[in-house]
């Protein structure tokens, strides 16, 4: 195969990666995007194997077969709930591979590309970042899997130790660039970097691990890019940088969804991990927060939705927004109903007045007795500013609201509760519904939240 054909194959593969990644970002095309990226990878691999540069096959074959089998097994057998840690493991392997490639190429052909120092620097970067990604990923995996304690692990002299490590890394890198003792220098650098990866991740709490994995994922992309520089291969440079950037953005998005700053997660560890640790402190009962985006996605792909309006809908005067959301959902083919509790609001018929004002058709309004058996078959319940009327405590004879019939929203698949805080309703008592696994809290004014949901659902 003439060289320029392989060049073109690489170029095509690069373009396919771009499109694949783009499509991965939208729910509608994500699966296709993944397939596209996979074919780009296959194309590049096949192209490479046909390349004239490859002369020995045994090692390649062994490696490929072993890796493929392990990858297959892992991907097939792991449970859905263990996905984040599995991604972490894969990522670790990828990062490690990049580090090895950078080191091996350096060892094999020395600073093969034009600028000697530059090649050394990129190789050092590849080894460093790849190794950090490798060891960090495995610690993250361990934390999520429970092999390593999930709580933030701190240790004495953390700051000093980090400083020493940092300086050592600098020295090792310099050694790698300056000397020609590539094997030894590489090993030293890799060793130190592996240690750094461990120390970086250990002090971070288990709850932050998905963000950490995403960040390490970005690192291993950068490592691949560095390996590309060492090899002089633009495809590696491009794909690695692409993933590096995407990973960074994704990490930021995930942080935002968790109300954390990226700096906080990435460098929090150096500072001793106090802020990261604060999150997992005990005291408050944990609720699952959600965002408008996520809730909108859930609604858009549901087939049946029940909306439970309460006094908060009235306070926010959000009836028009509610109507809008329902219209949009119905246009998508989602079955939507309003469950009207007899004493929702602050006067008899309060919800009726509001919903009639927004011109919600009467036949969408369903009484307590008629809707309760349906909750078990409902995909998503949206509780809008209601509290007492969905409080399962009413089923406990000792509660002060005992005996009130309630809407059994806790029997449905997913519950989204829209209110501004965890403060109680008219009866002044806490509501266990908010702490269920299936319940997501969308803390917001009802009008804002419903307006946002309408907008987002329309765009999905």
């Amino acid at each position: 195969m003439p060289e320029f054909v392989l060049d073109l194959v690489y170029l095509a593969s690069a373009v396919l990666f771009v499109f694949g990644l783009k499509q991965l970002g939208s729910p509608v095309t994500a699966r296709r995007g993944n397939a596209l990226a996979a074919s780009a990878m296959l194309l590049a691999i096949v192209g490479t194997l046909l390349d004239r540069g490859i002369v020995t096959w045994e090692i390649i074959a062994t490696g490929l077969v072993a890796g493929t089998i392990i990858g297959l097994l892992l991907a097939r057998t792991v449970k859905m709930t263990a996905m984040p840690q599995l991604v972490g493991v894969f990522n670790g392997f990828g990062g490690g591979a990049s580090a090895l490639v950078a080191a091996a190429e350096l060892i094999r052909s020395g600073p093969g590309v034009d600028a000697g120092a530059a090649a050394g620097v990129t190789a050092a970067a590849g080894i460093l970042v790849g190794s950090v990604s490798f060891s960090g990923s495995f610690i993250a995996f361990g934390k999520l899997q429970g092999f390593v304690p999930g709580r933030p692990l701190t240790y004495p002299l953390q700051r000093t130790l980090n400083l020493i490590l940092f300086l050592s890394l600098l020295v090792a890198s310099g050694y790698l660039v300056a000397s020609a003792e590539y094997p030894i220098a590489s090993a030293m650098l890799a060793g130190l970097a592996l240690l750094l990866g461990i120390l970086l991740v250990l002090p971070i709490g288990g709850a932050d691990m998905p963000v950490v994995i995403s960040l390490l994922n970005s690192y291993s992309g950068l490592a691949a890019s560095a390996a590309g520089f060492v090899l002089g291969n633009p495809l590696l440079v491009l794909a690695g940088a692409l993933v590096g950037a995407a990973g960074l953005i994704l990490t930021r998005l995930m942080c935002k969804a968790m109300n954390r700053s990226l700096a906080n997660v990435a460098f929090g560890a150096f500072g001793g991990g106090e802020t990261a640790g604060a999150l997992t402190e005990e005291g408050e009962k944990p609720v699952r927060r959600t965002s408008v985006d996520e809730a909108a996605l859930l609604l858009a792909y549901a087939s049946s939705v029940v909306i439970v309006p309460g006094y908060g809908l009235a306070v926010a005067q959000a009836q028009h927004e509610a109507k809008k959301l329902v219209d949009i959902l119905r246009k998508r083919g989602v079955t939507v109903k309003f469950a009207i509790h007899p004493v929702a609001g602050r006067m008899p018929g309060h919800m009726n007045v509001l919903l009639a004002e927004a011109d919600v058709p009467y036949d969408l309004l369903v009484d307590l007795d008629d809707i309760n058996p349906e909750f078990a078959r409902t995909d998503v319940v949206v509780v809008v500013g209601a509290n007492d009327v969905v409080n399962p405590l009413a089923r406990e004879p000792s509660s002060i609201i005992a005996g009130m019939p309630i809407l059994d929203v806790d029997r449905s698949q997913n519950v989204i509760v829209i209110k501004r805080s965890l403060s109680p309703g008219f009866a002044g008592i806490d509501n266990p519904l908010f702490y269920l696994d299936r319940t997501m809290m969308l803390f917001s004014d009802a009008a804002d939240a419903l307006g946002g949901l309408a907008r987002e659902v329309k765009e999905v």
Partner: protein
Amino acid sequence: MGEWLIGIYVFVLAMLLGFELITRVPPTLHTPLMSGANAISGITLIGALLVAGGEGGGLAAVLGGVAVAMAAINVVGGFLVTDRMLRMFRKD
């Protein structure tokens, strides 16, 4: 202009493009997207193949072989597991 320099251009442009591509992703896609991107970062497999199979052999080739195995795990497992996750998003 140096080859290395244009490499930098490619790198910078790819980063910018990566930023542009992933601007508004719904939270439910975060994990699959992370996983998919991770699989792509297994592109280092190409490098591993070249090193492992290239002339010279010796330590470099062995390291390359290990790299091939590791990268292959990343690529094969990564794409498969991403697909598994994404299958759940299908409507009905």
